[in-house]
């Protein structure tokens, strides 16, 4: 009785429904493209070609996806605890500080494979500490993390500007960025990986932090569904009352979860800083923290879904850049509109088509049952 509609089979829930949402998003985006007088089909071809048509295209797509996997996981882990961490942007930004300190300090003296683990630890630690304060305020004082993490994004941005135009900038330079790291502070690319599948990557910045992102996704899955801590996190997320009943400390779980979440966001900084630019630049996060929210929503807070959604958004970023380049009527801002539509339909309006789909499945299910009963009745004669 409490279930007014039939439950969808898993394949429809996790496959068909997101696909429908995506198709509608692209249809509406196509209308927008038509409105400015370009062919939506050409634009679509350009986007897919730009994102997957060449070794460099794939390299860029996966490079962007790496950022989104980290920030998507950051949001998802907090989601599982019932917390909405909007601070991925700031946690990633400030996480760059950890990468930079290790990269500047050790990049000239140690090989990359020694610097990398230290940089991972440093970025995760700084990101986690940045999330610790909002977590503490939430757990102890009831200050809502949504508000505090947004504020901490601004604080992080201000601190980083202050540092990048001050202490971190080499003397005599006009650009708000650090000096280039030594060889040890530069991560190897993944050109060889694309070579295996016959693609040739020349200038794209795809690097081994992509593999780290995949590993992180697996570890998050392990954490959430296979460990005692994950069990406690999910209990808290579904029902704080049940957590209290089970003797799970709210303070402890909120703080641990937010710190894991912040650590994942902080690790995002590895990709652009150590992997691509080999220095820290102003505003290197470029909104990836916020895209992570859409990625987590679309990926249903499941690591597999997040990896797929991150690749989709990587495609939008890379393919969108190609469209803006080739179609004079479509500016960079138009691309943002299209990305916004995808977020709207795939993320925010995720449940729009669910009732109708459920109704269709219910009807199909009934017809099947009736046929089945006719068959059994017939067989009984």
């Amino acid at each position: 009785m409490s279930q007014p509609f039939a439950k969808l089979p898993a394949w429809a829930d996790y496959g068909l429904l997101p696909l429908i949402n995506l198709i509608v998003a692209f249809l509406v985006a196509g209308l927008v493209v038509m409105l400015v007088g370009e062919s939506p089909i050409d634009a679509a071809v350009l986007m897919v070609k730009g994102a997957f048509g060449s070794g460099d295209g794939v390299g860029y797509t996966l490079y962007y996806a790496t950022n989104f996997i980290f920030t998507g996981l950051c949001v998802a882990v907090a989601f599982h605890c019932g917390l909405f961490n909007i601070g991925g942007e700031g946690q990633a930004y400030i996480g760059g500080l950890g990468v930079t300190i290790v990269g500047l300090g050790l990049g000239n003296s140690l090989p990359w494979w020694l610097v990398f683990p230290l940089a991972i630890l440093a970025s995760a630690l700084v990101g986690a500490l940045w999330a610790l304060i909002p977590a503490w305020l939430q757990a102890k004082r009831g200050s809502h993390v949504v508000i505090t993490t947004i504020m901490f994004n601004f604080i992080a941005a201000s601190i980083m500007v202050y540092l990048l135009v001050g202490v971190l900038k080499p003397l005599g330079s006009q650009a708000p960025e650090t000096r280039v790291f030594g060889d040890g502070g530069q991560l190897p690319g993944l050109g060889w990986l694309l070579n295996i599948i016959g693609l040739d990557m020349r200038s794209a910045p795809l690097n081994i932090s992509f593999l780290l992102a995949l590993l992180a996704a697996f570890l998050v899955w392990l954490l959430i569904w296979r460990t005692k801590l994950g069990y406690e996190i999910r209990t808290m997320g579904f029902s704080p009352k049940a957590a209290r009943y089970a003797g799970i400390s709210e303070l402890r779980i909120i703080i641990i979860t937010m710190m894991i979440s912040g650590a994942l966001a902080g690790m995002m900084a590895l990709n652009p800083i150590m992997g691509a630019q080999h220095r820290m630049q102003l505003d290197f996060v470029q909104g990836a923290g916020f895209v992570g929210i859409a990625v987590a929503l679309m990926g249903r807070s499941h690591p597999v879904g997040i990896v797929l959604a991150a690749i989709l958004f990587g495609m939008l970023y890379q393919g969108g850049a190609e469209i803006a380049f080739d179609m004079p009527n479509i500016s960079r801002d138009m691309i943002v509109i299209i990305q916004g539509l995808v977020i709207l339909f795939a993320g925010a309006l995720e449940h729009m088509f669910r009732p109708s789909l459920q109704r269709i499945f219910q009807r199909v299910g009934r017809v099947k049952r009736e046929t089945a009963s006719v068959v059994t009745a017939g067989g009984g004669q």
Partner: protein
Amino acid sequence: MAEPAIELVGIDKRFGAVHANRDIHMLVEKGTIHGIIGENGAGKSTLMSILYGFYQADSGEIRINGVPVKIPDPNAAIGLGIGMVHQHFMLVENFTVLENVMLGVEGAPLLKNGIAKARAELKRLEREYQLDVDPDALIEELPVGLQQRVEILKALYRGAEILVLDEPTGVLTPPEADHLFRILEQLKDQGKTIVLITHKLREIMAVTDNVSVMRQGSVVATRKTDETTVEELAELMVGRRVLLRVKKGEAKPGEIKLSVEHLTVRDSRGVVMVDDASFSVRAGEIVGIAGVAGNGQSQLIETIAGIRTAVSGRVLLDGQVIDITGAADPGELRDRGLAHVPEDRHHMGLVLAFEEYENSILGYHDDPLYLRGPFLDIEAIQADARKKIEKYDIRPGDPRLKTANFSGGNQQKIVLAREMERDPGVLIIGQPTRGVDVGAIEFIHKRIIEMRDAGKAVLLVSVELDEIRSLSDRILVMFAGRIVGERDSDASEGELGLLMAGVEAKEAAE
């Protein structure tokens, strides 16, 4: 025979695989009180939701006063003179009675005229049916009995000729329930038709003219109330003979296991919820706490179980003090042999989104039995869950099934299995059979008695007075946070009812 107010002809409704209503035929005579009785999940509420336009029947016809009608939404139902009083009141707490009554039928964008008209109409209704309520009182300040009266007034204000009441007495004291029944009689005398949905046999016998019994989505029988018995109805409901009163032997109370001394608890707003409560529970006895919902029982057991903190007082478990004022830890209490079946199994006792086996360790997930380092030993947990499923006959017997997909009775069995199988010294049980079907009630009651006979100290809280009386060896009555009396298990219902209503113990004894 009087002319029918409602005729249901061949109503059929499915929700996916669940066949909620099967080919229902029912006839409700005008100017009568018609009872619908059945276990949880028998399809009573679905049927009434179809009548009130919340759901559409897949097939079948509804006739109101002999005319076939379509009821696409509740507005259409109201238009046809059908009013509904829900189990959970649909009232705006910080509105006045008047504002609630006119909500949705204000008549004009400006309220001035509407208020005057509503006030006059409300007066007339109050006079006609003797439903006295102060129209300017705030809902949140009214006792539940009066809030329910406002719900009835709301329906009458909208011109209801047919009144459907869904489990109306769940929140009332016995005297309040009796008062409600008098109101219903009065409405009947004025020519209204009343449909009363309930799972309490006693109420059916007390107030209805006719009764339909539902089981598994079908109407299995319709009887004239004078011509049937409680036993017959119970058997029809369950489909087999049931023991309405549990059989149990003499209690053999042992040493004191749990003792509560001068316990005072405030809620988050600072209101005193438990007021200087003292009592003890011995090994091998069941102590029942009777009381109308909201008189501090919930806070009392949650404090003992370490979920809430107290302002003052002491709780001793096996003679050892439990830290109840500071950060009491339910986990630590479990280690010390205190098990707790919470009142609110949907939000506290279970995580409905979890699979069954995940809930089978809630609260005991620190036990090394279920762990392998930091990882859950999923195989061990599932094997353990399967054992409990077998022993407690939990259906369907699939530990991988989502807990929300179990029926109320089976959900409760999941909690009971988890708490009882730990072999605790003290067992606190809140509302053991709320939302549980009759078949499972029998099983649960038996298990509780078994725990007692095994020498456990059992503290039982229930708003079902029958349950308290049939299970308990001693009965404490709570009213407004205080323990206002202690009685033996053979105390009369009337005596307990008066205590529950706050009538002083001395007066009650007279």
